[in-house]
């Protein structure tokens, strides 16, 4: 058997059993001897992940297949004498060329996929709670003619509902070994492990005829099952009972809102103390490093560039971990599918789907975990659409910018009852973000990203007690991916950004870095020069070079615009809540002309800019990782910036016009 590996433009041919091409540490392709690869195939919710985790333990590797948003998960068989690599194929319902998950699975199994050698054997995971449908998929997989074994999961659920599956007869009918598994109790795993270690000896299943249509597959499964399967006498009563409440027209939405409120509260509020502890620890580590090193550019780069940059990456971890713990938990229990069902109509209106809801909700805390959560959306086009509109949601990093500018420039007057003008403006900014997201999703559905021919469907699995090990492992995997894949983009970019703001260095006036020195230093930097160069561009929006520097600096994190403006204005206080800063912002004057630096039209325009602009390298980095290309993050940055610029100009010009008119009238 020979396979073809197309790598970076050239083609390498070699026997797949003996060697695999891998990207080495330095990025050079290296060959490495390899034992057998066993692919795990099965439908979503079939218990495939439980089996994969049980067979591999913590030793897993997650990568992206090139050019698509499909993840490649692999690991080594635990405790075997031979080295067997397990490849967890995406959960699929069939082989459709229009669904990337399914297309890649089919290509890998047939050996047509350039980046993954053909596996030596397949372990098919058959969902015991829906054997008819699983056998239909098995018929498709078996057509590839590979050595195969079958693991029947949820084996206990069949008997619990009064059904029976004769394993020996099924094994005889299929001509493959069959292993009954009760995943959450670990029953049957040991025997399976032994067999997988010797997977090359598995037989190729006997299928008399080629089955190409769904009807043929269904009649074949019916034939197989009629000899060995007694269907359950009753439905899953517990699931039906829970669904009667959870999917009820009145109590259903109430439960949904309660769960979503809990989820939101968890990432919005509960993550904050941990995040503060993280950034506090990094600050102290930075201070310590600064105290032991000699003064100079190297110390500055290490403390402010690298350590602060690394802190800026790790600060996302609490939100990512909390969100993915809850998402994985809800998914394992079976509620996520119900939530998707309940929210589908709402999201369907704007061209998205039910599962987009959780992702977009999470974006109100932070777009980074929100975009990572789009992975739960099965349709690739809906996934991309959700990602492209996600950054419009008002994330918590925008709040310091809004509250500072509102406190400084929006009069604190009561409109009606407890509602004041300041609160109303903040609400308006939130609404503007969400509304723009909705309109953009609609527009994208009509133009750039059309729907596929594949239909929309959700399977509601039976409610199941979650396996905590799987939930925690999946959470940990997400966190690891973020740090290793997004971190490697965010860290260099934040060091670069620090460099722009710090070089060329102006010599310090005295031993103590006073506010004035800091202000001068930032003005003389590359970012300062860039800010001045951009002045004519942003002048129609009412931004002077000082604000331009703030906008450049805020690419690292939006809230940084606050501290940067404080530095430029030569204000010691960096806290947005600080009364002196609000006062200073209002009264800051241009030293040459004596004109106010920040006026109401400028403040409104700046807030508008932050509503729309994708001022966040972390968001761009995670979008790059999730879509596996720079195309989508570039598109998102481009169209959001254009919109932000246009809206800021409109708001500024309108505000100036109204201000001028009312001044003339008064």
């Amino acid at each position, binding site marked *: 058997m020979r396979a073809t590996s197309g790598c970076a433009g050239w083609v390498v041919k070699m026997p797949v059993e003996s060697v695999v091409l891998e990207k080495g540490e330095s990025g050079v392709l290296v060959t490495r001897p390899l034992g057998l690869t066993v692919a795990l195939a099965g439908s979503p919710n079939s218990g495939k992940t439980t089996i994969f985790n049980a067979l591999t333990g913590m030793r897993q590797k997650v990568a992206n297949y090139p050019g698509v948003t499909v993840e490649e998960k692999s690991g080594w068989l635990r405790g075997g004498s031979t080295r067997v690599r397990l490849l967890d194929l995406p959960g699929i*319902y*069939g082989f*459709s060329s*229009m669904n990337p998950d399914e297309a890649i699975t089919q290509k890998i199994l047939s050996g047509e996929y350039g980046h993954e050698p053909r596996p030596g054997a397949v372990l098919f995971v058959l969902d015991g*709670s*829906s054997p*008819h*449908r699983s056998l*239909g*998929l098995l018929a498709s997989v078996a057509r590839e003619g590979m050595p195969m074994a079958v693991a029947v999961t949820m084996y206990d659920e069949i008997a619990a509902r009064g059904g029976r599956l004769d394993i020996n007869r099924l094994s005889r009918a299929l001509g493959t070994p069959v292993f009954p598994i009760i995943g959450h109790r670990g029953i049957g795993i040991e025997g399976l492990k032994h067999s997988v270690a010797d997977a090359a000896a598995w037989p190729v299943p006997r299928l008399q005829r080629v089955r190409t*249509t*769904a*009807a043929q*597959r*269904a009649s074949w499964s019916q034939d197989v099952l009629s000899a060995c399967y007694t*269907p*359950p006498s009753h*439905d899953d009563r517990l699931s039906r009972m829970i*669904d009667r409440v959870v*999917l009820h*027209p009145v109590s*259903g*939405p109430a439960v949904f809102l309660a769960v979503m409120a809990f989820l939101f509260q968890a990432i919005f509020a509960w993550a904050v103390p941990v995040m503060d502890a993280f950034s506090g620890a990094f600050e102290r580590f930075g201070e310590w490093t600064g105290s032991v090193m000699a003064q100079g550019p190297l110390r500055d780069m290490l403390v402010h560039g690298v350590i602060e940059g690394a802190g800026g990456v790790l600060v996302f971890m609490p939100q990512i971990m909390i969100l993915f713990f809850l998402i994985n938990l809800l998914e394992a229990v079976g509620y996520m599918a119900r939530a998707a*069902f*309940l929210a*589908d*109509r709402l999201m*369907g209106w704007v061209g998205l789907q039910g599962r987009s809801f959780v992702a977009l909700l999470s974006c109100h805390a932070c777009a980074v975990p929100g975009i990572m959560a789009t992975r739960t959306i099965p349709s690739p086009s809906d996934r991309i659409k959700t990602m492209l509109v996600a950054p419009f949601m008002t994330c918590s990093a925008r709040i310091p910018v809004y509250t500072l500018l509102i406190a400084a420039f929006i009069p604190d007057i009561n409109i009606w009852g407890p509602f004041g003008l300041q609160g109303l403006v903040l609400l308006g900014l939130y609404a503007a973000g969400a509304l723009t997201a909705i309109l953009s999703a609609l527009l994208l559905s009509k133009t750039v990203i059309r729907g596929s*021919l*594949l*239909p*929309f*469907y*959700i*399977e*509601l*699995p039976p409610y199941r007690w979650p396996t905590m090990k799987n939930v925690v492992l999946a959470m940990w995997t997400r966190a690891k991916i973020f740090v290793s894949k997004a971190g490697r983009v965010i860290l260099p970019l934040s060091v670069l950004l620090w460099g722009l703001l710090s070089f060329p260095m102006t010599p310090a006036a005295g031993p103590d870095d006073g506010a004035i020195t800091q202000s001068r230093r930032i003005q003389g930097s590359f970012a300062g020069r860039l800010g001045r160069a951009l002045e004519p561009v942003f002048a129609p929006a009412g931004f002077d070079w000082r604000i331009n520097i703030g906008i450049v600096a805020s690419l690292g994190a939006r809230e940084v615009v606050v501290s940067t403006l404080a530095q430029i204005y030569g204000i010691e206080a960096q806290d947005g809540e600080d009364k002196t800063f609000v006062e200073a912002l209002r009264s800051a004057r241009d030293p040459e002309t004596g004109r106010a630096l920040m006026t109401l039209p400028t403040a409104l325009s700046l807030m508008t800019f932050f509503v729309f602009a994708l001022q966040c390298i972390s968001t761009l980095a995670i979008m790059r990782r999730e879509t596996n290309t720079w195309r989508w993050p570039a598109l998102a940055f481009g169209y959001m910036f254009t919109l932000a610029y246009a809206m800021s100009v409109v708001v500024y010009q309108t505000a100036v016009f109204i201000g001028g008119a009312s001044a003339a009238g008064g």
Partner: protein
Amino acid sequence: MFTNDPGSVYPLDEMDEREPSVVCGYDDEFPVERRERFEDMGLLAGETVRRLHTAALGDPIAFGVRGSVLCLRREDARHIRVRRVGSKDAR
């Protein structure tokens, strides 16, 4: 396929809750890719379906078919034809 008993054949989305029906077939204009997928999910001619839940505003709809629960949007469900069955046909 629909000629046997035209009076009682109707689209899947108009089906009554908890009154089982049997799938007759798909509209001709329904894309074959979608049809194959739904057939793989169990919505094959001759299968018994039950309507279990309807989301707010009537869309999507959850159906019970072959022991599993499958949710479809109305836009797809209305292209699937079902026939009401008497108690003797229903499982």
